[in-house]
């Protein structure tokens, strides 16, 4: 979500937290895998991303505990497992993540929108 007056990224749509039809788990990154302050961790995550990222893409940061608690509140007992890939050593996945839970997606999106960083800001 982008503010129309300032052009700033101000939030995330709940749809960003939906699994795609071919996904079983929600892909996330374990920030603390990388050393440094949050900006450096995000820079490393972007550098190792397997997706084709554009400056307008964004990363929302949610603490693991808050993520798990929010899911639990909405009836989902998720397990977050570090599953590094060849290219992305911080790659992790939220297992048993629900395919359809609008309340949860909306709340996670709201949480992510509170700590949102655009790829363009990190690479600037």
């Amino acid at each position, binding site marked *: 979500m982008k*503010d129309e007056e300032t052009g700033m990224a*101000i*939030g995330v*749509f*709940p749809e960003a937290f939906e699994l795609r039809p071919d996904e079983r788990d929600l892909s996330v990154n374990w920030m603390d895998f990388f050393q440094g302050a949050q900006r450096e961790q995000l820079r490393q995550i972007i550098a190792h991303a397997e997706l084709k990222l554009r400056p307008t893409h964004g990363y929302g940061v949610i603490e693991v505990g808050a993520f798990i608690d929010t899911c639990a509140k909405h009836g989902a007992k998720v397990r977050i497992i570090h599953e590094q890939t060849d290219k992305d050593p911080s790659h992790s996945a939220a297992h048993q993540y629900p395919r359809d839970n609008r309340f949860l*997606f*909306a*709340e996670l999106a709201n949480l992510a929108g509170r700590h949102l960083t655009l790829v363009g800001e990190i690479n600037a």
Partner: protein
Amino acid sequence: MSAFLPESLAPSGLPKLLQQHLSLGGTALSSAMSDRLSNIMTPAPSHGIVARPSTVFQPIEGQKELKIFNAAADLKIATSSVSMHLPDDWRRRLFAKIDQLHQPDDWEETDHLTDIRSFWTFLRTVLQQGPMKRMSLGIDGNGNILAGWKRGDDTLTLAFLMDDQIRWSVVQWISGRVESVAGIVDLHRLPVVLGPYSPKRWFGDGDNVPTS
């Protein structure tokens, strides 16, 4: 499912936007656009609407830029057909957002084009609620139009589905605790379900938005 072209798009009521597209001249894009417009400019029958083929849910394959251009043009044409109900400035900003959302570099070959049926639901919502202020627009993986508002830490999002259905959610923080509601509603019931969440706060208040 087809989209319908209102009579106001017949040649006599051709909006400026279309004239500008027609005068681009020379490029493959304008040629294709002219072909499409020549179809929709055929005088409407007496009942005032003509069906035209819908391009919804077509994955982008080949000629990506042309298809994205056409998808954006479809949205602008639809908007122009109700432009008499929209302030010029609001409509111009909407067109700018449509262009922003249809930058070819932001689209993958496998993405679904914007669903015109979703956009009609969006437009009818705008006509119902009035031109909504400080609105973020997006498109989901199925080509549905999304709109969102953030006021303080609270958020309202709407996903416009076909046939005037709207998926909605409100998340608000009250005394440090989060409260969320969500659902799917028919457009005519939207004011009722949003009633307890102060629609004016979202749609009418453009001032209470964080700037940093």
